[in-house]
């Protein structure tokens, strides 16, 4: 906590804010995927559309900072309602495909809408002032605002997870037919968590738009949708801090890959490593593969598991078990 408050005095605030935005984005996805068991492959649609909405509000309509952010979140929430409402009509893998397809549609709409800048995106988005007083052009001031919003978003996901709603959600994730037989309207629960997740992702996107002053098509691209899934998976699905760890890791990796590559090139004498900076996609994909094959619990998950196995006594029978996600097929 204290570290977060004094950090901008030691570390470049823009980097910190970027980390916070993506951490919030990952938390939003974790809520949906880790706790709700729903894979959205189009979450960038909410992140990016909120960014564009906030940008338009600040640039074209000259709304104050707070209202612009709010507008971004509302746009993301509405989009979440529409996409979520359509996607939950199918289960499992179809759900994921539908979110991907609808997000792609959003991408094309954003590309073609006049006023959103097409291939160039929105530029020169002003930061404005918080409540008309605090000048957000100052990075440090903005940092505390972003930190506060991140804390609010994170607190919200935390509250949702640990509420009765959250428990029903996990029950639905683990065994939907049983939840339905117990009388729960599983469709409603899924839609609500989808909209919440979209809203928080929207908040992250709106903040990022203000932070960098620019929103581009990359913010609604499926690469980003995949990227945030990776962050969540790498950090640890269904853990509280996992998404933060994952987001920090992935963002730092992408930032530093160039330098890491040069260092590796010098150390091993293999000049190809110098190109690593351009190979972000390849490295991201490779990490994805490794994670899915061998590292499914993610960083935080593996740590938790390690602590648990060290603490518990070994069982008498230890047959070769394989992971089973789902009810036993009696």
């Amino acid at each position, binding site marked *: 906590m204290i570290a977060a408050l004094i950090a901008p005095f030691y570390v470049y605030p823009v980097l910190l804010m970027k980390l916070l935005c993506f951490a919030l984005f990952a938390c939003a996805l974790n809520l949906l995927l880790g706790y709700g068991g729903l894979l959205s492959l189009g979450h960038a649609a909410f992140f990016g559309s909120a960014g564009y909405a906030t940008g338009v509000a600040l640039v074209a309509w000259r709304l104050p900072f707070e209202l612009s952010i709010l507008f971004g979140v509302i746009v993301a929430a509405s989009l979440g309602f529409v996409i979520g409402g359509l996607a939950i009509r199918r289960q499992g893998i179809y759900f994921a495909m539908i979110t991907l397809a609808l997000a792609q549609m959003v991408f094309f709409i954003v590309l073609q809408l006049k006023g959103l800048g097409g291939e160039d995106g929105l530029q020169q988005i002003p930061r404005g002032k918080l409540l008309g007083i605090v000048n957000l052009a100052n990075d440090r001031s903005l940092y505390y605002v972003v930190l506060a919003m991140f804390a609010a978003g994170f607190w919200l996901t935390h509250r949702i997870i640990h509420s009765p709603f959250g428990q029903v959600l996990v029950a639905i994730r683990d065994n939907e037919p049983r939840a339905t037989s117990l009388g729960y309207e599983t469709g409603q629960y899924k839609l609500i968590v989808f909209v919440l997740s979209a809203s928080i992702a929207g908040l992250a996107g709106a903040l990022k738009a203000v932070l960098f002053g620019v929103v581009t098509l990359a913010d609604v691209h499926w690469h980003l949708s995949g990227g945030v899934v990776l962050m969540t998976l790498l950090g640890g699905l269904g853990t509280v801090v996992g998404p933060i760890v994952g987001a920090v890791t992935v963002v730092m990796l992408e930032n530093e890959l160039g330098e890491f590559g040069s260092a590796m090139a010098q150390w091993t004498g293999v000049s190809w490593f110098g190109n690593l900076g351009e190979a972000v996609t390849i490295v991201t994909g490779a990490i994805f593969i490794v994670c899915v094959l061998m590292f499914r619990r993610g960083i935080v998950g593996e740590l938790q598991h390690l602590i648990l196995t060290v603490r518990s006594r070994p069982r008498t*029978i230890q*047959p070769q078990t*394989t992971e*089973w996600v789902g009810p*036993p097929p*009696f």
Partner: protein
Amino acid sequence: MSEPLLIVENLHAHYGESHVLHGANLTVEPGELVTLLGRNGSGRTSTLRAILGMTSSRAGSVRIDGVETINMATYRIARLGIGYCPEERGVFSSLSAEENLMLPPVLSKGTTQMSVDEIYALFPNLAERRQTLGSRLSGGEQQMLAIARVLRSGARLLLLDEISEGLAPRIVEEISKAIHLLKARGYTILLVEQNFEFAAPLADRFYVMEHGRIVEHFAQNQLGPKTDMLHQLLGV
């Protein structure tokens, strides 16, 4: 004294985290019909599936015709001559009755392999409905098809799960007659049954399961004095 066709020793099995078999032991001699009795959830179906290696993990020993199969893949175990009729019958709905019948490969052409003509003679209903889609067959027809399927494959050891369940008494009669015929032809059968009345006249020996273990074991000629205990145990 020939070795039993099936020897199950200290068989443990899991479905994911769920430990369903806690050291089951049983044997089946060639040509015998052995019945596995027990309440729902006692582990009978799991035993059959574990023999075929269809649970997510298993430990112990399963010897089929002298061959240790505990580390074998399911299809290799089946190729030793096993025919499986699952509880849900497993008739493929997008295939016709005849496609279903012809689907399993012929495992061996010994005395236990029935030709298609012989099968249609045994189950004339199936001959009539051979072009019907699997999903359109009645419960009884599906059950007969499930049995017919494994007969064509030439399996020697039949694992039958609840073959009388949910069927009209007339059809159960027919199936019972078919099983008698199979026994006479030298098939070795491990039969899981809830319906005691169906199993009693067919079986040479009885095992009773509870909580994933064998708790009772007796022969056909010891049945009389055991009936009360069975009624209690099985809640019949």
